[in-house]
């Protein structure tokens, strides 16, 4: 089971690389925001998986909850900014 989890962890890291390509490359700023949102979703899953590997899920879930809440605030702030200012 542990080996399987490590395989899943590595695959998720590769997927994060794909999203990172979009964040680095993205022609407009909105692509970057969407890529960042995808990365944060992956990061939440990765945190819970890491907790499962370390067998301390209870601690890691609290971090991921904080992550999710703050990601919502940050992304909404970016969207609000872009809506008021238009394209930079």
């Amino acid at each position, binding site marked *: 089971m542990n080996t399987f989890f*490590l395989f899943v*962890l590595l695959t998720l890291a590769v997927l994060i690389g794909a999203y990172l390509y979009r*964040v680095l490359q993205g022609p407009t700023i909105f692509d970057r925001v969407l890529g960042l949102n995808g990365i944060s979703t992956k*990061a939440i899953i990765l945190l819970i998986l*890491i907790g499962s590997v370390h067998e301390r899920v209870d601690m890691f879930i609290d*971090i991921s909850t*904080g992550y999710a*809440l703050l990601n919502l*605030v940050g992304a909404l702030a970016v969207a609000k900014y872009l809506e008021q200012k238009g394209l930079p």
Partner: protein
Amino acid sequence: MIFSFEIPLLILLLLTAAGAILVKDLMSAILLLGCYSFFLSLVWAWLGAVDVAFVEAVVGAGLATVLFLLTLFGTAPKDSRLRRPPPPMAALIGLPLLGILLLYAAKDLPQFGDPNSPANSHISPTYLEQSFHDTHTPNVVTSVLMDYRSLDTMVETVVIFTAGIACVLLLRRKAS
């Protein structure tokens, strides 16, 4: 089982840092810095430092992004593209040399999680054994931060609170 999952995370971290330096406008640099904090927090979590990961996620990815955005709101630059002079020759040669020196020195550090390393054998066992008896707090990190170093933590809080008041005073909108 030792499995170095931190290596792909560190590669992602390097890519993000390079992108944050090379990217052309300020908004993208802010987003990439948020990304960087995500990866750094994942590295901390993988190494088992849960509280550091929590602080990195909350402050680095959440608060710092929003504060940078508020700064962009407040300053409202007409042209947010960066014009950066090329780096001086001394930095281009000196910093890689410094990095090589640091890597060379890091070879002599004790192994990760080694119970006989100085950090684990000198003063930590005392805290681990006596903190519950002294403070009746189940979490050792909390007992050190909030009990043994409580004055230090209190003054830190005062500093952060003052900085927060200053930020609110600077960023408030005029009532029109």
